[in-house]
C-alpha cells in the first residue's frame, strides 16, 4: 500500500501536471481567474483522469500492445501505433458520458461546470496521463493511482493560482504585464516551489 501512496504523492506533487510537465496549461491559465471555476475544473480533472487512465490501460493491454492478440493466433500483431486514436476516442466518450450523467442526476454541478467539461476532451493533461501510463508501463492499480494523483495535483495547483490571482486583482501592475503576463510569472513562482518537491524526492 505504501508504494501506491508514494506513487500518488509523486504524481500529485513531484510530477505536477501543469507546473512541472507543462500539461494542460491552456485551461490552467484560462480558468484560474475565479476560485469557483478553478475548484470545479480541479474536481472535473480528477474525475476524468481517474476514469480514463485505467480504462485506457485496459484497452491498451487488452487490444493494442504487441502480443495482445496472441490468444487469437496472431502473436506478432502490434497495434500500438493506433493507441493515440483509441485514447482520444475513450476520453471523448468518457467526457460525454460524464456530462450526460451529471446533467441527468446532478444538474446543479452540471451548470457549475458549464463549458469546461466538453473542453476536457482536448486537454493535453488528460491525454498526457494515458500516454505516460504507456511510456512508464504501469500496472492497472498503478495507473488508477497515477490518474487520481495527477488530477489532485492539477486541482491543488489551479486552486492556488486562482487564489493568488484573486488577491492580485486590485494590484497596480504595469499595463503590459496585466492578465496573461503576470499569470505566467505567478505560475513560474509556483513552479519554483514545486521543484523543491523534486529535490526532496531525489534526496530521500
Amino acid at each position: 500500500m505504501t508504494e501506491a501512496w508514494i506513487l500518488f504523492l509523486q504524481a500529485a506533487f513531484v510530477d505536477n501536471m501543469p507546473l512541472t510537465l507543462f500539461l494542460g496549461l491552456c485551461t490552467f491559465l484560462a480558468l484560474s481567474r475565479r476560485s469557483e471555476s478553478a475548484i470545479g475544473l480541479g474536481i472535473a480533472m480528477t474525475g476524468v483522469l481517474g476514469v480514463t487512465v485505467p480504462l485506457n490501460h485496459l484497452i491498451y493491454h487488452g487490444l493494442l500492445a504487441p502480443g495482445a492478440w496472441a490468444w487469437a493466433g496472431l502473436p506478432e500483431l502490434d497495434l500500438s501505433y493506433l493507441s493515440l486514436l483509441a485514447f482520444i476516442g475513450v476520453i471523448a466518450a468518457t467526457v460525454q458520458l460524464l456530462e450526460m450523467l451529471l446533467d441527468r442526476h446532478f444538474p446543479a454541478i452540471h451548470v457549475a461546470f458549464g463549458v469546461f467539461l466538453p473542453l476536457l476532451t482536448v486537454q493535453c493533461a488528460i491525454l498526457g496521463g494515458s500516454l505516460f501510463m504507456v511510456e512508464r508501463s504501469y500496472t492497472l492499480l498503478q495507473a488508477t493511482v497515477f490518474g487520481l494523483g495527477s488530477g489532485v495535483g492539477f486541482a491543488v495547483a489551479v486552486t492556488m493560482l486562482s487564489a493568488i490571482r484573486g488577491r492580485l486583482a486590485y494590484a497596480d501592475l504595469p499595463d503590459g504585464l496585466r492578465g496573461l503576463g503576470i499569470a505566467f510569472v505567478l505560475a513560474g513562482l509556483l513552479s519554483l516551489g514545486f521543484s523543491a518537491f523534486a529535490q526532496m524526492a531525489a534526496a530521500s
Partner: protein
Amino acid sequence: MARSFSFWPTLTEPLIRQNPVTLQILGLCSALAVTTSLATALTMSASLTVVLTLAAGIISLIRRHIPTTIRLIVQIVIVASLVIVIDQVLQAYLVEISRALSVYVALITTNCLVLGRTEAYASHNGVVPSMVDAFGNGLGYSLVLTIIGGVRELFGRGELLGRQVLPLAEDGGWFTPLGLMLLAPSAFFLLGLLVWAIRSVLPEQAEAAEHVPPATAEPAE
C-alpha cells in the same frame, strides 16, 4: 466566400500582432515543455507547422461534407492520423530528438492551436486561405519556441544547437551556466517576460484592468 482573401496579411498577422501563443493563449503546453534546447524546439515547431498546415488543408477541402454535429470528432481523427505519421517519421529518422520530445509529439493532437485554427478558420474558408493562415500561425508559434529555446540553451549551457558559444568557466572561459534556465520555472518566467515585452511595444494588446479605481478615489486606508 464572405471575407476577401489577401495573401500577405493572412500570413504575417499571426507572426507577432495575432501571435497564437502570446495573444490567443493557444498551444502553450508544448511551447514550454520542449524548449530546453534549440534543436528540440525547432523539431517541435516544424512538426506542428506541418500538421497544422496539412490538417487545415484537408479539413477545408471536406468542410462542406462534415456534418456539424460530429465535426469535432472528425477534426480530431484527422489531426491524430497526421500526428501518428509525424511521430513515426521522427522515430525512424531522428531517434535522439524523438526520445527527448517524449510524449509531446503525440500531444500535438490535443494542442489547442491546431483545433482552434481548424475550427475557427479552416472550417469556414477555402483551401488556399486556410493553409496560408495555418502556415502563418505555425510560423508564429515557431518564432516563440525558437526565442525561448534559444535563450534557455544559451544561458543554461552556453551552447546553441549543441555548439559551445559562450566559453564555460570550468574550461577557462568566463561563463557560468545558469542551471535554473534548464528547469521548468524559467520557461514560465521567459514567456511572461516575452508577453510583457510584446505588449509594451503594442499597447493595444494589453488587457483591460478588471477593477478600475474611481477617478476621485478616497485616500487608501
